[in-house]
C-alpha cells in the first residue's frame, strides 16, 4: 500500500527517459547545508575505463578539487590544467590520499577514456588526479548542481574555468577559478579546508615578518604568474621547454612575439614555434595578455636567473 502511488505512476506514465536527472539518497537528518542529497550520484567513467559514482566513490568524506574541461579546448583549458598541475605538485603526496582531483569532460562523446589518458600524459598529471567522462546529460546536470555549469555560447571555449574546492565531510565549499594563483589554491585546499589536520602547525614559521617588503622583483612575480605553470629556468622540461639560456638562443624580438602573440607565430608557420608545438605534444602556448612592459620584465628575469644559475654551477 505504501508503494501503490508510484508503481501506478510508473506504469501509467510508461516513460523511459534515459537522461538522468536526480539522484536520491538516504538523507542525513541534521544538516541543512549541502549533504548527500545535494550531490547527484551519477555514474562516470575514469580514464582507465573504470565506472565510478560521483557521490559514493568520488567525493564522500573527501577534500576534492573539481573542474570541468574538454580535451579539444584550445584556449583556457591547457592553462587551467597546467595551473592545477602546479597545485597538485604543491600539495605533494596528499593528492591521492586525503585530497582528490577531478577533471570532468563536458565533451564526453569526444573525450573517451583513451583520449583523456593521452591528454593527462601531455600535462604530466600525477596520481590522485582522475579524468572522467560519462553521459552528456548526467555531466550537464552534475555541473549545474555543482555551480560549475557554463552556457556553451559564453565564449570561444564554450566554457568557464571555474574550480570547485570543498571538503565533503565538513560541508565547506568554495568556487574559484582554475586559472588562479596555485600557491593560494594549495593553501586553501591543503590547510584551510582540511582544518589543519595534515599541517604541522608547531613547525610553521612566517616567511617574512609583517613589515612592508623592500626590493621587490616584479619579473619574478610575473614569471610566477604567467610562465611557471609550464616552464622552468634550469629545472628541466615541463609542459613546455626549460627556458635556461633562451635569451641567448633566440632573438629578443622573437621572444617578445612568442610571449605576447604566440598564436601569430603558429599561424605564420614560424619554424621554431611550429617545431616546439610538435615537440610538446601539440599543447598551444596560451596568450595571457602580456603587455610590452611585462614582457620585458619577464625576459629580464629569465636573463638574470640564467646568469645566476650558470654562475652557481661554475662556482
Amino acid at each position, binding site marked *: 500500500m*505504501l*508503494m501503490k*502511488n*508510484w508503481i501506478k*505512476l*510508473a506504469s501509467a*506514465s510508461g*516513460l*523511459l*527517459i534515459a*537522461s538522468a*536527472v536526480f*539522484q536520491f539518497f*538516504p538523507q542525513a537528518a541534521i*544538516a*541543512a*547545508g*549541502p549533504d548527500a542529497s545535494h550531490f547527484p*550520484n*551519477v555514474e562516470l567513467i575514469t580514464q582507465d575505463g573504470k565506472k565510478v559514482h560521483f557521490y559514493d566513490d568520488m567525493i564522500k568524506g573527501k577534500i576534492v578539487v573539481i573542474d570541468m574541461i574538454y580535451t579539444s579546448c584550445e*584556449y583556457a583549458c591547457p592553462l587551467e590544467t597546467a595551473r592545477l598541475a602546479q597545485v597538485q605538485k604543491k600539495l605533494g603526496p596528499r593528492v591521492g590520499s586525503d585530497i582528490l582531483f577531478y577533471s570532468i569532460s563536458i565533451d564526453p562523446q569526444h573525450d573517451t577514456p583513451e583520449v583523456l589518458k593521452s591528454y593527462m600524459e601531455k600535462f604530466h598529471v600525477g596520481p590522485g588526479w582522475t579524468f572522467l567522462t560519462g*553521459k552528456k546529460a*548526467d555531466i550537464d*546536470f552534475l555541473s549545474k*548542481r555543482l*555551480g560549475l555549469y557554463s552556457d556553451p555560447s*559564453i*565564449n*570561444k*571555449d564554450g566554457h*568557464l574555468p*571555474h574550480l570547485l574546492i570543498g571538503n565533503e*565531510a565538513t*560541508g*565547506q565549499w*568554495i*568556487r*574559484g*577559478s582554475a*586559472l*588562479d*594563483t596555485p*600557491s593560494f589554491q594549495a593553501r586553501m585546499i591543503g590547510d584551510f579546508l582540511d*582544518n*589543519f*589536520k595534515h599541517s604541522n*602547525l*608547531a613547525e610553521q614559521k*612566517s*616567511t*617574512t*615578518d*609583517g613589515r612592508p617588503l*623592500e626590493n*621587490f622583483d*616584479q619579473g619574478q612575480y610575473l614569471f*610566477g604568474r604567467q610562465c611557471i605553470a609550464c616552464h622552468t629556468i634550469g629545472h628541466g622540461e615541463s609542459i613546455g621547454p626549460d627556458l635556461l639560456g633562451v635569451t641567448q638562443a633566440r632573438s629578443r624580438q622573437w621572444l617578445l612575439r612568442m610571449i605576447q602573440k604566440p598564436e601569430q607565430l603558429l599561424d605564420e608557420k614560424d619554424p621554431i614555434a611550429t617545431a616546439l608545438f610538435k615537440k610538446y605534444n601539440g599543447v598551444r602556448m*596560451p596568450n595571457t*595578455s602580456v603587455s610590452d*612592459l611585462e614582457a620585458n620584465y619577464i625576459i629580464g628575469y629569465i636573463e638574470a636567473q640564467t646568469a645566476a644559475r650558470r654562475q652557481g654551477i661554475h662556482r
Partner: protein
Amino acid sequence: MGRKSEDREGLWLSDNSDKARLRAAENARRNRAEITAALSHGKVSRRDLVKWGLFSAAGIMAPIGGLNPFVRPLSGVTFLDGGGGGGGGCSQVPTGLSPSPTFGVAPFSQPMPRFDVLQRNPVSILNPAPQAQSNQTQQPVDPALVGGQTGLTGPIEGRPPGASWAHQRFAQLPPQVAIEVTTKPCIANTSYNPGVTSDLNSGINPAASLAPRVHPNFPVQNSNRIWTFNGTFPPKLGQMRYGEPVLFRHHNALPTDITNNGGFGRFTLTTHEHNGHHGAENDGFTGAYFWPNQFYDYHWPWVLAGFSSINTGATDPRAGAPDGNGGINKLPGDWHETMSTHWFHDHMFTFTDQNVYKGEAGMNNLYSSLDRGNEALNDGVNLRMPSGSAKDWGNLDFDVNLMVADKAWDSNGQLTMDTLAFDGFLGDQMTVNFAWKPFFNVYARRYRFRILNASVSRFFAFALSDGSNFVQIGNDGNLLPRTVNLTQTDQLGIAERYDIVIDFSRYKAGQTVDLVNLQQMASGQLPGQVLSVSQATSGSSCDPCVGGFLRFKIIGPPPQQDRSVDPSGNGQGIVLIPNPTFPTAVRQRTFRFDDNGQPTTSDPITSYANSGRWGIRTSNNGIEGETLSADYGRISAQPGFATSEIWTLEGGSGWDHPIHIHFEEGQILSRNGSKPSPAESGRKDVYRLHPNGTVVLQLQFRDWGGMFMEHCHNTMHEDNAMLLRWDINNAGQPFLNPLPTPISKPTGVTFETPDDILPSA
C-alpha cells in the same frame, strides 16, 4: 504576462506557485521518500525500479512528473512570472530550496523589535587591557580546531602580530569607550535594551525573555542555526560619537567543531565596520580572521576623513561632536565627510554570505554636531532630524533602524540556505530586524528610518502602500547634499543604506500604512522589474518577497510636539551636507566585474585571457589586466598615500553587481556617461553597476594605511571570487613596497610574501 521557459533542473517552487504544482511537487517528494524507504528496507530492488522506468541504470531517479519534484507534471502547467518580464526566473525563489512555511500565522501579527543597544563601558573594564599591538599571550588550542593535534598553543588575540598590524595612532586616539561582544550560538535574550520606552517599541516588554525566533508563533531556532553578536535577537546597535574612539572587543565563542554549524556558516570571524574610515587592522580584512576561543580588538577611532590634513586646528563647529551638555566638541577633519549610519558584519573569506545571513550583522549610528540625534537643540549647526530630545545626543525615540533581509527556513522553521547557489541566493520570506513581516506602532509625527539592505543577493525598491510621499535624507549612511522627495526609492543594492523620513502626521489613530517592496528579482544574479505599488500589493508577483512587509500602525498624536526640521522643504528639499571637494586625481583605474562572457576583441586567442573568467579584471593606468579570482595574497592596486584617484567600475551582461569599496566614501562622477540621480549624488560606498553599466567615481586615500578590499556585495559573488585587495602603502612609499599577507591559523598568524602584485598596481 510572460511565461517562464522550461528549466528542468533549476525549478524550485515558490509559495505563489500554482496550487496544483505545489501539490504535485509534494506528492513527488512523498513518492521519492517512499521509494527510498522501500529500497533501504529491501522491499524492492534497483533492478525493479530500472525495469519500471523509474530509475536510470546509474541509480538515478528518472525525470517523470509526479515522481521528481523538480519536473513539471504532464499537464504542462507553466509559471507566470507575475507580469514582471525582467528576465523571468522568478520561480527560483528561494534559490535551491522548497518554500518556507509560515505555519498558518498571519503577517503583521507581531511587533517589530527595535535594535538591541550595545552597552558602552569604560575601557578599564577590559581584561586584559587593550594594547596597540596584538596580544600574543598564549593559551592551549582546542584540538578540534587543528585536526586533533594536541599540546599546541595559540595567541589569545587573533589580530596579526607585530608593528604593521598595531593600531595606527593608538597613542594619539586612545579608546575612551569599550564595547564588548561575543559571537555565539543563539540563546534567549534576557537583557534586551531597545533604548526607548515600551510605547515606542510597539508595546514590547524588554524585561521579558526574548527567544530567538522570527515570529512568536514560529519554532525557536536551534542554537547553531543562528549566530549573532551576543547570541541573541534582535540585531545589535552601537551608538558612536565622533571624537570618541571605541575599542570594540569581539570574542569568538562559536563551537570548535567545524561541522557543528547547523548546515551553514563558518566558525572563523573577521568584523568589517562598513564603511568606517579606520586603519586597515580594524577594517575586518577578509584574511585577518580569528578563531573560536580568541578575541580581536578593533579600534574604531571615529575621525572625520581628512583629519590629518584638513581643519587640523579643529576650529569649525560643523566638524564636531555633541559634548553631552548641549555644546560641541570641535574636531579636526573635513565636516563634509561626516557620516551617520554604518553597519558591521562578518567578512570571512569565502564565507561572508553564510555568516552574515546567519546573523552576524549589526548597525552603528554615528553622532556628530551636524547629525546629533537631538531634534530640539537649535544651535545653527545641528540639522535636527527626527530623533527625540530627552538626551543631549543619540535619542532613538523617533530614529529607527530597520535591517531588511530575505530569509528561508525549512519545514521545521529552522533557518536554512543553499550554500552552492554561487550565482546568488534568494530567500522567500521578508524579515525586518530578523522578525517576519512585523508591525510597528508609530505616533502621528515625523520618523527617521535608517534602512539597511542586509540580504545575500536581493535588491529592494521601497514605497508606501498608499503611494504617499516620503523624504530621502541619506544614502549609504551619509546625509545628502540636498534631500529628495520621493514616492518610491531607487533600487537599494545589498549593503546600501537609505535614510528616509516619513511624516505620519497625515494619518489618524487606527490607520495603517505598509512599507512595500516593489523590486522583483529576475534571479540571484540580478533584479528584474520594479513593479507599481498596486501590482506589488496585489499578490500577483511570483516573487514572494514583493509586497508589503512592514505595517505601520498609527496609534495617535505624539505625546510631545514634533520639533524636528521638515526635510521635505515643501517639495524642494533642504540642504544637509554638501559634498567635499576633491583634489586633482592622479591616476585612473578600471575594474570589470564579470564572467567575461563576451570577449572584448574579435581575435579569440588574444581575448582568451579575459574571456571566461569569473572575477574582477583590474586595469591600472590603461594596462589591460586579466580577470582574476579572489586571492587576498594578491595586491591589485596600490594607490599612493594622500592622493586621489578616479576608478571606473564596469558590470558584465546578465548580472548586476553592487560594488563596495572599503575605507573612504567616494562620489559618483557619472553613471553610463550621465550625471547620477539626486538620490545617489552624495557620498557613497556601494555602487550598483546595472547590467553592462559603467560607474565612474572619485576616491581619496588618506589618514591611514594598510590593506583594504573592493568587492561585489552580493555576498555569494563576493565569496566566490569577486573580491580584490588593494593596499595603501603605510609610509606613503611608492610602488613595490608591498605588505606581506597574514595567514591566520589557530596557533597564530604567520606572514607570507604576496602571491601576486599586478603590474603598475
